[in-house]
């Protein structure tokens, strides 16, 4: 009988660190094809509809960019915390707060056509996201409270705050009672950057974040201290690194990024506050992006494009294959499963052998 055993490697495999995401993507595609076949779809047609159709024109590529941009931005912020084992999984709530804060500025300066409205929206968005992330940071550092559960609970609270605002005080006075704010004026909308697409200037913020995090991870002493604190808290303590800082910065970075992404969504594709449009699930999807991207800026960039393609593929599958668009979330979950599963190969190698041979060997000895 053939047996497969996991044998510990003496050293973690460097190449597997980079190969396992590719392996995971491959496994996800194979598994996806099998699922499509089970659903009675022609795998080639389904594959085309899911992965090629959405991006075979300029408009599609623009859509890819505007979905990848917030995913990458949030994932970059989360990576700062994840590298230090700070588990901020409430980015979705921080994103909603960013949307609320930026939207509040846009509505407050509704009459204004000043060029300062947009920058102010982004500052408000970042602060909103940071304020929401500061709650788990404060409770963790002051009261030792688990940041996973607190940040997650605050996602639901943030959703309720938004719901209250658009049902109540911020509801569009001319909106026939629909639960949404009025449309922002032009001064609160991001300019489009590519003719014929919806791609907007929010992408530049993501690029800026990419540069900042690259420098921070590569040369920042703080990033190094945080990494040590994450890998070996005791060693960090002996070295005199302040673990409170790690928690605060880990959470605030994710909050700021998610808040900026929320502001960018409000000032970009939506142009108003609206429940369905503002609750995108990007905050959760970005967790997958961060992991698939190996918590590395360049990896995150590629992972965000892949995840954005999965979103678009889901929408295209709904139109072209009459499949529920939730199929993209299934793929996203599968991708993370496969990645976590293949990661075992970083620390272990597979040993193939038949148990008969092993038995014979044992007998000979």
């Amino acid at each position, binding site marked *: 009988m053939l047996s497969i055993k*996991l*044998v*510990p490697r003496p050293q973690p495999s460097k190449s597997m660190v980079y190969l396992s995401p590719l392996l995971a993507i491959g496994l996800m595609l194979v598994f996806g094809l099998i699922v499509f076949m089970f659903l009675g779809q022609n795998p080639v047609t389904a594959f085309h509809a899911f992965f090629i159709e959405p991006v075979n024109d300029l408009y599609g590529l623009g859509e890819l960019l505007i979905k990848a941009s917030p995913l990458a931005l949030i994932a970059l912020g989360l990576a700062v915390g994840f590298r230090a084992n700070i*588990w901020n*999984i409430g980015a979705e709530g921080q994103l909603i707060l960013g949307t609320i804060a930026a939207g509040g500025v846009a509505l407050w300066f509704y009459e204004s056509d000043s060029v300062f409205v947009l920058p102010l929206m982004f500052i408000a968005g970042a602060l909103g996201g940071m304020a929401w992330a500061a*709650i788990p940071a404060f*409770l963790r550092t002051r*009261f*030792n*409270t*688990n940041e*996973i*559960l*607190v940040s*997650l*609970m*605050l996602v*639901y*609270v943030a959703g*309720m*705050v938004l*719901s*209250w605002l658009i*049902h*109540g005080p911020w509801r569009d006075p001319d909106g026939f009672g629909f639960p949404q704010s009025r449309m922002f004026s032009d001064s609160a909308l991001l300019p489009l950057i590519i003719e014929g697409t919806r791609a907007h200037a929010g992408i530049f913020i993501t690029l800026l974040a990419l540069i900042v995090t690259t420098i921070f991870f590569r040369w920042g002493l703080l990033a190094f201290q945080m990494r040590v604190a994450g890998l070996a808290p005791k060693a960090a303590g002996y070295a005199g690194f302040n673990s409170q800082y790690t928690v605060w910065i880990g959470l605030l970075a994710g909050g700021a990024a998610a808040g900026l992404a929320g502001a960018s969504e409000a000032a970009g594709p939506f142009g108003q506050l609206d429940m369905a449009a503002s609750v995108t699930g990007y905050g*959760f*999807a970005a*967790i*997958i992006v961060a*992991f698939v991207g190996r918590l590395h800026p360049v990896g995150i960039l590629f992972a965000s494009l892949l995840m954005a393609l999965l979103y678009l593929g889901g929408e295209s599958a709904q139109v072209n294959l009459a499949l*529920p668009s*939730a*199929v*993209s*979330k*299934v793929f*996203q*979950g*599968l991708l*993370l*499963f496969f990645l*976590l*599963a293949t*990661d*075992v190969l970083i*620390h*272990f190698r597979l040993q193939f052998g038949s148990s008969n041979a092993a038995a014979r060997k044992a007998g000979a000895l």
Partner: protein
Amino acid sequence: MNTETLILILAATVAAAVPLIFAALGELVVEKSGVLNLGVEGMMIVGAISGFIVAHETGFLWLGVLAGAGAGVLMAFIFGIITLTLMANQVATGLALTIFGIGLSAFIGQNYSSVALDGLDKINLVGLSDLPIIGKLLFSYDPLVYLALLMFPLISWFLYRSRSGLILRALGESPASAHALGYSVIKIRYLAVLFGGAMAGIGGAYLSLAYTPLWSEGMTAGRGWIALALVVFATWRPGRVLLGAFLFGGMTIAQFHAQGLGIEIPAQFLTMLPYLATIVVLVLISRNANTIRLNAPASLGQAFHKEVH
């Protein structure tokens, strides 16, 4: 408030506590074995939709409950393969399970969101159910409520009075010692994880088959996460899990009655209550670092490989 309303509120509190009791007691057993499965929300919601589909297609509600448990077990099995066999990070895998579960339930439940179902019938014991006050308060629930309440003494007995329970707890404290004594750490942890999956699945099925007999996307609404918080709040003790579940059940029900009592608060702020309360109780219980350190299973969340340890 008259007696009738009060009884109504108390009975509703018990019903609202049931999904939390199932999910949190299941997770308690899992965590006692040293495994942290953050995928409770995902297992619950897949249990909810699976139970609903099977009950709707076959017409047998109890088959739906079984399907819910089965779906929870399958989800837990995925978690087991990745964290126990392949030794991946339990936090990340649990998150993945929740994200996957929410997506999968929306995917397979697409055509069931406007379908009606007659929920589980409440028991009707001749004589007992008609008693004044006590009849409504004790003898008028559907059978799953009694199953949930029965799980409490069963699990308490298993954990603290049975030999297997002792082994399970020992494993959670020191897997290496348990391994040295000849117990299969991985196998026992698998059993615990699968049990937790079944319980979360039943908790989810209770929502879609009895509590509000319908399917709507995301209907678990964070109950899986609240169940996880309950285990911490209970400092890993079954009795306190039960108490906490009733507390949160009451919180969920309070929001429906607050407006009836003339409290003028927007509905959204009342809906926030259980989530905010979760944060508050977590803060209260974690404030003293020793409380958590002394009560949490020592190996909670750590992978085990017999050749590495």
